[in-house]
């Protein structure tokens, strides 16, 4: 039998200054065959060339700088001040990038993705699940039409102008919109939890290679994460994997396929 010589795609997950979802995000990537390193922003600033050996760049969720001066702003400022060139170089290659929650706020503050994120419509932090309808085209999203994931944020209301929205729709750059699906119906919740413009939960850039999203796919990597788990496990011994894992697998497969 021929030996499998596929090189695991290398993933860099940023950390430091209050980002806090790096470990579970790493776990998700590695459970589907990636090789992920958690790298502190200061270490990347010390050795910026390091970025060139990675295929996937991740800004995970968290509370960088405690949201002081505005969510994602301070971390993005630091990244911009020291790593602009390297980021540009990274995005010009055939790479993937994702920003989740605080990471999404960082990506918009960096200007990598359009729009901005501000305080939820009721002014309060909220942790709950949402249903999403996939409306964009991206390697991250292949094969997904609908998906339910949790959110946990105080500043998740996505702002975008009408003109930009129209262009993005046309270009399939609106990744997901909040939708009244299985979970909202189950727990009688409103679809759009934060008042985001056009119900936008995530957007795409760079031909779909860069994804920014408020919901947390890594918090849906096991079936027991879902609020429906207790109901569903009554009916059948369901799979241990949660829906969120698909995004991570898509990303890893994007590179694995290229090697074949």
């Amino acid at each position, binding site marked *: 039998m021929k030996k499998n010589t596929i090189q695991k795609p290398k993933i860099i997950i940023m*950390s*430091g*200054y*209050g980002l*806090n*979802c790096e*470990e*579970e995000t790493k*776990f*998700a990537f590695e459970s589907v065959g990636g090789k992920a390193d958690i790298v*502190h922003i*200061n270490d990347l600033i*010390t050795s910026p060339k390091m970025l060139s050996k990675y295929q996937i760049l991740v800004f995970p969720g*968290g*509370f960088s*700088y*405690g*949201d*002081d*001066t*505005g969510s994602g*702003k*301070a971390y993005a*400022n*630091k990244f911009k*001040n*020291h790593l602009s060139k390297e980021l540009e170089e990274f995005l010009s290659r055939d790479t993937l990038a994702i920003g989740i929650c605080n990471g999404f706020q960082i990506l*918009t503050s960096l200007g990598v993705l359009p*729009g*901005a994120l*501000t*305080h*939820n*419509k*009721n*002014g*309060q*932090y*909220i*942790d*709950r699940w949402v249903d999403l309808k996939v409306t964009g085209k991206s390697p991250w999203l292949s094969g997904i039409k609908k998906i339910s994931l*949790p959110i*946990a944020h*105080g500043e998740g*209301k996505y*702002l975008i102008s009408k003109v930009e929205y129209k262009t993005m729709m046309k270009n399939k750059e609106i990744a997901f919109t909040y939708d009244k699906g299985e979970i909202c119906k*189950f*727990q*009688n919740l409103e679809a759009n939890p934060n008042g985001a413009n056009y119900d936008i939960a995530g957007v795409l850039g760079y031909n779909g290679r860069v994804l920014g999203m408020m919901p947390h796919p*890594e*918090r849906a*990597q*096991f079936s*027991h*994460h879902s*609020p429906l788990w*207790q*109901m569903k496990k*009554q009916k059948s011994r369901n799979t*241990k994997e949660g829906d969120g894992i698909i995004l991570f697998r898509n990303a890893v497969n994007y590179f694995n396929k290229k090697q074949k």
Partner: protein
Amino acid sequence: MTSRLYVLPKGEDSRKGLFLKSWNSLGLNGKITDLSIIDSYLIQSGFSVNELARVAAAFTNPIFEKFSINELPKVKDFSYIIEIGFLPGVTDNVAHTARETIVDLLHTKENISLEVFTSKVFLISGTVSMEDVKKIASSLYNPLIEQGHIYTIKEIRKDNNLPLVIPKVVLLKQTPVINVSLSVSDEELIKIGKEGIIGNDGVRRGPLALDLESMKVIQKHFQELGRNPKDIELESLAQTWSEHCKHTIFANPIDDIKDGLYKTYIKGATNTIRKQKGKNDFCVSVFSDNSGGIIFDKDNLVTHKVETHNSPSALDPFGGAITGIVGVNRDTIGFGLGAKPVANMYGFCFGDPYDTRALYKDKNLTQKMLPPKRIMDGVIRGVNVGGNCSGIPTVSGFVRYDDQFRGKPLVFVGTVGIIPRKINGKPSHLKEALSGDYVVVVGGRVGADGIHGATFSSVAMDSTSPATAVQIGDPITQKKLSDAIVKEARGMDLYTSITDNGAGGISCSIAEMAKECGGVVVDLEKVPLKYQGLQPWQIWISESQERMTLSVPKNKWNTFKELMDKRGVEATIVGEFTNSGKCIVNYNGKEIMNISLEFLHDGLPKKPLTSSPIAHHYDNPKTLSGVSRTKALEELFQDKNISGFSFVSEQYDHEVQASSVLKPLSGRGRINTDAQVLRPVLSSSKGVVVASALYPSYSLINTYHMASCAIDTAIRNAICAGASLSNLAILDNFCWCSSYDQNRLAELIDALKACYHFAVGYGTPFISGKDSMFNDFKGYDDKGNPVAISIPPTLLISAIGVMPDLNKTVSPEFKKAGDSIYLLGETYDELGGSEYYKMLAHNGKDKNAIGNNVPRVDSEKNIKTYKSLEKVITKELVSSAISLASGGLAVAIAKASVGGMLGCKISLKNILGEISEIDQALFSESQGRILVTVSKENINKFEKIMKGISYAKIGAVLPSDKFIITDMKGKKAVESSVKKLFNLYHNFSNKMK
């Protein structure tokens, strides 16, 4: 030069609504039509206009914000401005971040002369008067930590800018060290002990909380040394000997219990249980460290610790609660060589949020107490910011309300941690500072905040309570510190010991670690300060937050320091551990403290305590006539002590770390769960179950039964979710009142006896605990009449267990129509102190008629029930399990129904035990009972295992909305609908949103 940058939203501001709602509920004369919220950055620097513009741009998201410099942004007609900023010296987290951003952006040196102060500016328009605006302003800030300024539009028109005044700390120059003469009268000794040392300014510095007996021992000690103590020595002894640190009430002999309560009943229970368990003992580190540690699996330990932060939360709810939660996180980071926090929990006991009576700390009515709603909002927000920012899921909690918590609220905070059993080949729970190691402080800097916190919480709250006892936490500084220590330095073997700086600051942490090697020398001037001018004694005992103390071997210092620098964590050598037997403190080369460790740690005189028993009797309330209890159940179900609190659960991130299995809210109807399950190690399918329970109202009747019910309920809650009785540990948190009162001491002994009996009875060892013994308020009402409010004696029991397979987790709500409903356990006439009797008493004439039949626990019988339940859960034979607690059977059924949004039909005919009346069947709070549902195909197997256990099939889950309970004779007792119950359950929570 000082400049002001203003940043404000361009479009609609989502925060507006919350403010408008709360302001318009203040009872204003006029009406507010609009407001703008502006962030102000006051910057003192040598920057050019150009540089300032770059700075302002960095603080502004151009898509929805705009900025202006030294000019109030143009906002359409407003009439007043309120500015809220921090008092000088109070931690300003946003300013820290802003400064860091500026230094980074302009590539300047870290130590450049640059100061940043932030404030929130509210521009208000509407038909309001100055009086209204004052009301609004006072609802926005806490004068202990913040300042508020009101400006009219006229006042600022000239400059079109707010004043450029820097809120800098100005400390008067004082003699750094005072010799305190103890050759004084007993009256003066008492005064020093109670109100503090007289400073150079002639003002006493605040409570030492040392009684005459302790003062005399200190007097004698220094007489023998032939000198007077210096102020820092006295302050240091006061910290170390405080009730808060030494737990004297639990340690001293009491009546004929010569080893004291803690050794006899708490540690005694654990020792007995560990012996009985033999090789199945799962305790690894109990009582000796900052948290308790038990075995998780062959590679990891799981730790738990629960703290209280009551006194600070009464003064500054937000600051008190945030320091509480980040403080207990440090008890995890300070376990062994440093555990990783994996779950937070909270428990709040508040006064009635609708109670608006004014209370004052002083007779002149100048120091007003915060109303319960304000305390509640602040505390909830404090745990929100502290927990959410730290990336630790807040998985569980509870909220209780009672008028007796009006004087002092109870704020419980807990943290579960995980740590590999071996680190670098050595057991991780063992640590020892070695003589010759550096004393290293990491994390935040020291200010005047949090001085006398430990001694303050050891006395009742009155007008002498120090304002400086309040601190504000900075979760991000701590997160950086936690990650650098636990995720990096720990594995690199860079330190030999670590502990938390909590109560008493470095005076306690360093002296505590010095015990490990036998001595220490500290150079106090090396401690990094927030601002200059602090006196040595202040530096020594300050409780400024986010600091840990480590012992770092000399040859590892460079590597350690380099790592901390790279992670943005300040680390400083402040001294060296020795084996001299002494704790020596120098300040600028001069020795200012020299006390033997022996006297410091063991010099406190033993004071035998005596108790005097007391019995309470209450009448039963007038019962309702007829059979229908529909209204009674509906009223009880929406009581804020029973109903849901999703308004709290939803604003706490409970899913970070991707560990959530059984969440704080469950099912279609989003009911609050009584136990939660998490997956702390993602690569393992083992789960950790946490649960807790408390019954403060039972204390009014009998504290023995109060404690036994708390233990039984915490255990039962955990078992219902899937925990195993043989692998369950518990924690105790005693919150008592007037603890030198002999009756209160007798009640305390009763509670501790129950702790021993039932911990041993169930085989659930105590692994950690904490006490807070003086939850009393002494003050005045608005007419100047004295008012004293004490909490009811409260014992919180927290349970933690490891479950082998988290896939077996069971949630409390009904799952599907057709499932049979079973009641396990027996029901008795045990309504004394119940939520139902409290409701009847509240509605009736005699407000004290809460009855006497408080529930009693039969652990032998309950063990059999719990073991059988464990078995059916492991075999996956039950669809749901909910523990019966406050509100009894009827409330449990209603909750399970709402959770599943499924109706049910219940008959009380078959329930076991001894009951004669419908109320007993519905609302008695008899312990050891569980409601489970079983699907058709599992009934035979289920009943076979349950043989020999008291159980009764009492009904079935319905596909419809109907909620029906018939009484023992078959008559309809309750007829309601699930939808209605759902609305009642969430009613209070929705109002609090």
